[in-house]
């Protein structure tokens, strides 16, 4: 029996050196370095274990996995039973597990008994009951009756490890999985084992709370019910739950998750096990932020604005679709389509086809954030239809990973964890950024200190060896020349580039053709062959050839009256590069159709509001940053909850130009049939850097969204939000001094649009640069109308009556 690949997530192609040993009289060959406990799994023997976890370093603490090793491979056996989770296989080794060794069997049974003497056995009220490794393994490897009649150890219960994570110490078997995860994987060693002997327990240092973005993973890997989440504690029993695999929607990682629901209600989410993507970990946001779909402001019926009262009133689907179709038809193709960045690929494809075949416009742009023509060109030339050029696994094999315009810990936690793992095995992480963040330090990363906006200079100066990878965040779109310099630097170093957007739907929207000048499958709009190919596939005579408007232009021309109507698919106005301009445009638009899940600023001005299904209620797929298609089925089947596809198909039919599909499956089939473009690509952008002088008495703003912030996707999750990082403004001591701000005191950022205050923290930023969170306490876009690399005015003190973070 030979097994080449152990489940470690490695996708290496290097030849594997095999070692042959005997376990329970069965000869097995496994890769060198395999632990005995995992080699045994390969012959179908499960050795009981608690502390062992394949993604954590061995510790050998729980002693549950003891086996007899009668020959260590050198002709001599071990006199005592050995912990199979700490011993690597050796050629000629002879192992006897509980299956063939009475010694091992007794050692395991005895250890299980020890584990249970101080365990409360409160399984009937314990959240873990029914899915508990201790419960299960005590059934398989323990004894039915206890011999322990004495006094059990008790603790007051529970204690808060954080607002989100609760600890029942008497249930804990002290396996140290949680503490090892926090230290080894997340790099947040805020929990540790304290005290000794029978008083040993998981503890925190009160002044350093367990505010880790990955804390929920400790709950999931806890082999007993010691760690529970405030969110799920006492809410359900595992055997009452229905588990549905799905894909996380809060970032572009495409992390596998498992959604557990009961009677149509999501009770919790867990990390799925996908070695190639998120391994077994997810961020706390992906784990806990799911109640937004039931937050109370969900739109449940179509709404149509009554022209007389100017109020939205519930309407039937046929009536609402008729009104919407009529309004869109009246705009005679002068419709801007803004599908947003959170759609599934199939939904995005429906928008693209709807815009180009029904509305006959190329005025479609999924980007509800800072964007540029240069970015669109970069996406068309280097991102669209590239698939798995750079993968999670590749990050572990690169020599250097350069981060530009990306803070993985906040913006893509799965990339952060993978990079941290990579850095532990020698991959160099380099960040082109204004300062070394905690995340960068945890990756042992190197900072190329750069003033926001000066990335082109930093990129041009970069010297890299072979096998480097660039990870570019969407923020780079705010920097003129940024993507051009990125492509030049990568080409110079023969390095690969991966583009990492924040939102789950952005990458799929590119493939679906939700950019004005990029048709589905990466077909360039300007390429007549590509247009013809698409028209043929779609069964239309032509697709429009006129260059489309991007998001900014759509709003601008709506305000000017050249765009008459808007079709909006769930766009937060405060996410837009210029919320004030967008509001003026919305006020000016003649007709607005909004497809959205929850009430928003757009709802307030829409003429027709068509409720769509949230991710949990629809099937679909996200294309993650790797270009990996992550397909999922609906978790909850709500007959009244319609996908964007179904609604757009209805609208199209009402407008007399059917889309040709009504369901996700049909849309997916149409996408597959269409396939990617194999013709010439758009050339790469060659935009020079911005050379306009900075305004006087202004500072450059560095900003991004913290993982846990005021985003609406986290609504309804108070415990999660309580673990957010504090909103502080960071600047160098010299910068603070130059603007008369007390270090640690309050500082104010202002623009013509408004004013925001933050407490300050001295950090090693370049002089003249400040960092502030984009949406923690106050939205910088909403309050100041600014974003990354913009100029703001810094002054001291807070501003009573104004927005304060």
């Amino acid at each position: 029996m030979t097994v080449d690949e152990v489940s470690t997530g490695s996708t290496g192609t290097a030849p594997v050196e095999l070692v042959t040993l005997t376990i329970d009289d069965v000869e097995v060959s496994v890769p060198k370095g395999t632990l005995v406990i995992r080699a045994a799994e390969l012959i179908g023997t499960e050795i009981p274990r608690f502390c062992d976890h394949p993604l954590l370093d061995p510790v050998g603490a729980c002693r549950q996995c003891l086996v007899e090793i009668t020959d260590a491979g050198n002709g001599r056996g071990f006199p005592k039973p050995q912990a199979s989770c700490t011993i690597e296989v050796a050629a000629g080794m002879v192992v006897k597990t509980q299956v063939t060794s009475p010694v091992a069997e007794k050692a395991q049974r005895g250890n299980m008994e020890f584990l249970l003497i101080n365990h409360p056995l409160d399984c009937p009220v314990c959240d873990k009951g029914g899915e508990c490794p201790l419960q299960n393994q005590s059934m398989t490897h323990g004894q039915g009756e206890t011999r322990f009649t004495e006094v059990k150890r008790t603790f007051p219960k529970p204690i808060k490890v954080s607002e989100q994570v609760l600890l029942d110490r008497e249930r804990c078997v002290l396996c140290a999985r949680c503490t090892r995860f926090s230290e080894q994987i997340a790099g947040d060693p805020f929990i540790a084992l304290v005290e000794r002997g029978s008083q040993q327990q998981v503890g925190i240092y009160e002044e350093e709370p367990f505010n880790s973005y990955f804390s929920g993973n400790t709950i999931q890997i806890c082999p007993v019910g010691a760690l529970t989440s405030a969110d799920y504690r006492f809410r359900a029993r595992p055997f009452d739950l229905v588990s549905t695999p799905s894909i996380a929607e809060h970032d572009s990682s495409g992390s596998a998750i498992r959604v557990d629901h009961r009677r149509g209600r999501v009770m919790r989410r867990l990390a799925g096990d996908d070695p190639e993507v998120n391994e077994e970990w997810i961020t706390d946001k992906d784990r806990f932020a799911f109640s937004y779909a039931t937050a109370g402001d969900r739109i449940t019926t179509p709404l149509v604005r009554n022209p007389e009262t100017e109020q939205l009133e519930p309407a039937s689907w046929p009536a609402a679709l008729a009104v919407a179709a009529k309004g869109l038809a009246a705009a005679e193709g002068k419709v801007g389509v803004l599908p947003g960045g959170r759609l599934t690929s199939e939904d995005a494809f429906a928008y693209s086809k709807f815009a180009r075949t029904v509305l006959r416009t190329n005025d479609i742009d999924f980007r509800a954030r800072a964007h540029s023509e240069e970015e669109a060109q970069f996406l068309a030339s280097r991102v669209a239809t590239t698939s798995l050029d750079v993968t999670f696994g590749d990050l572990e094999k690169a020599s250097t990973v350069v981060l530009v315009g990306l803070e993985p810990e906040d913006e893509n936690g799965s990339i952060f964890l993978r990079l941290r793992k990579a850095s532990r095995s020698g991959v160099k992480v380099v960040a082109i950024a204004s300062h070394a963040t905690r995340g960068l330090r945890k990756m042992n990363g190197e900072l190329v200190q750069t003033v926001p906006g000066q990335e082109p200079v930093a990129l041009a100066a970069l010297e890299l060896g072979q096998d480097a990878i660039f990870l570019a965040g969407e923020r780079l779109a705010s920097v003129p020349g940024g993507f051009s310099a990125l492509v030049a630097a990568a080409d110079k170093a023969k390095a690969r580039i991966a583009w990492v957007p924040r939102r789950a739907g952005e990458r799929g929207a590119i493939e679906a053709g939700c950019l004005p000048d990029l048709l589905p499958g990466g077909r360039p709009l300007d390429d007549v062959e590509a247009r013809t190919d698409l028209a043929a596939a779609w069964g239309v005579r032509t697709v429009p050839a006129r260059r489309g408007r991007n998001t900014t232009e759509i709003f601008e021309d709506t305000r000017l009256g050249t765009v008459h109507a808007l079709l909006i698919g769930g766009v937060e106005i405060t996410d837009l590069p210029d919320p004030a301009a967008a509001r003026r445009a919305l006020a000016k638009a003649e007709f607005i159709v909004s497809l959205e899940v929850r009430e928003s600023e757009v709802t307030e001005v829409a003429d027709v509001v068509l409720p769509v299904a949230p991710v949990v209620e629809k099937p679909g797929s996200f294309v993650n940053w790797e270009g990996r298609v992550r397909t999922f089925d609906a978790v909850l089947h709500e007959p009244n909850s319609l996908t964007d596809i179904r609604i757009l198909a209805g609208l199209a039919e009402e407008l007399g130009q059917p889309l040709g599909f009504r369901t996700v499956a049909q849309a997916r089939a149409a996408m597959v049939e269409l396939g990617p473009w194999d013709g010439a690509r758009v050339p790469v952008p060659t935009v020079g850097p911005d050379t306009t002088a900075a305004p006087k008495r202004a500072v450059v703003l560095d900003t991004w969204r913290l993982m846990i912030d005021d985003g609406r996707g986290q609504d309804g999750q108070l415990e999660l939000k309580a673990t957010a990082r504090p909103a502080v403004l960071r600047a160098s001591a010299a910068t603070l001094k130059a603007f008369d701000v007390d270090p640690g005191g309050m500082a104010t950022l202002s623009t013509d649009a408004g004013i925001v205050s933050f407490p300050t923290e001295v950090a090693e930023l370049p002089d003249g640069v400040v960092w502030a969170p984009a949406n923690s306490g106050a939205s910088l876009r909403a309050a100041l109308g600014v974003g990354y690399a913009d100029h703001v005015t810094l002054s001291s003190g807070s501003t009573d009556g104004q927005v304060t973070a």
Partner: protein
Amino acid sequence: MTDTLTPVLSADWGTDRAWTLKAYKQAGGYSALETALKMAPDDVIAMVKDSGLRGRGGAGFPTGMKWSFIPQDNPKPKYLVVNADESEPGTCKDIPLMMATPHTLIEGVIIAAHAIRAKTAFIYVRGEVLHVVRRLRAAAREAKEAGYLGTDILGSGIDVELIIHAGAGAYICGEETALLDSLEGRRGQPRLRPPFPAVEGLYASPTVVNNVESIASVPSIVKNGIDWFGSMGTEKSKGYTLYSLSGHVARPGQYEAPLGITLRELLDLGGGMRPGSELKFWTPGGSSTPILTAEHLDIPLDYEGVGAAGSMLGTKALQVFDQTTSVVRCVLRWTEFYKHESCGKCTPCREGTWWLVQTLQRLDEGQGKDGDIELLLDLCENILGRSFCALGDGATSPITSAIQHFRSEFESGLHTPSRELFPPAASTLFAPQTVGGK
């Protein structure tokens, strides 16, 4: 074999202010260092290896061999760590030695550091013995001022820094890897091996961890030669050592004698049992070593002899108990100690000691249940060899050996409290000498 005392380490304990550099030098101190510094490091290692010196901390591993395991091609710094975390119940040899003649240890440290090419050495002292810490620090200061520590020692070009580190009071930190964790500033818990300290010890660098007495024995070997050292002791257990006699003995104390002496001889030297008392049981090397009885009075107290009798030489802490002592109560006290000192890392030791104590308490109270003795033996079987480090093993030794030799006393625990069978007051040293059983 000789039956006389051979005071080497303890030879000068009686000298006035023996702990000062002046007194130590008057007794010929630091002359071995001068010899050793002129020797090549490998020659020092070979000398200690050839002398047959075995580790005095309990396990008896050959000291010179341990030094030779240090990979000298490893570019990382090498460290010498002296384990002075003496906390085993009954063991009391290192602390008097460090109190009386700390320079013996420091001289040994410098020689050992030279041998393994360590520029930094640590003495990890048990936290409770503040007076010893102070005395060691004073001695290290004196040695440094005299040029025995620091850079270019005695013009040899050899540098050794010595750091006296006080532990925080945990028995587990006597376990060498837990000691290293503690020394690094972490909570003391044993580490997974491999890697062994010789390869990745302190700060993941090659490290030798030796007991105080082992290191303190080195200067005498350098000074007097391996033949002198080998003239004492037995074939496989060479040299002299400190035997710590305690308990119901007329004159308890440190008896420095060649390895292989018997308890009968030591008791003679110590004036015999206290008046009116007879030997009931004893530990050869602290509470972790299985107890022995009067029938073992003539076994040679060396590594092989005690091992053959089913126990271990351990730290040569001979605790002697007379007929007034309740074995059950004594074993309960020891077990309470192990429960208190279990670090908590592994299940068998943490939970097993918790259970053992409660079962022994019941027997001590005369409220034992049928099957309790079998339960104790079974629990010990489930701990011994199953725990992460030797602490768990040590916790079972007194129980299994006590049941082996005194099973009937445990059986009495099913109905009669130990305080009735063995009134505690009679065991005290100040008890009237008309003790029961006479």
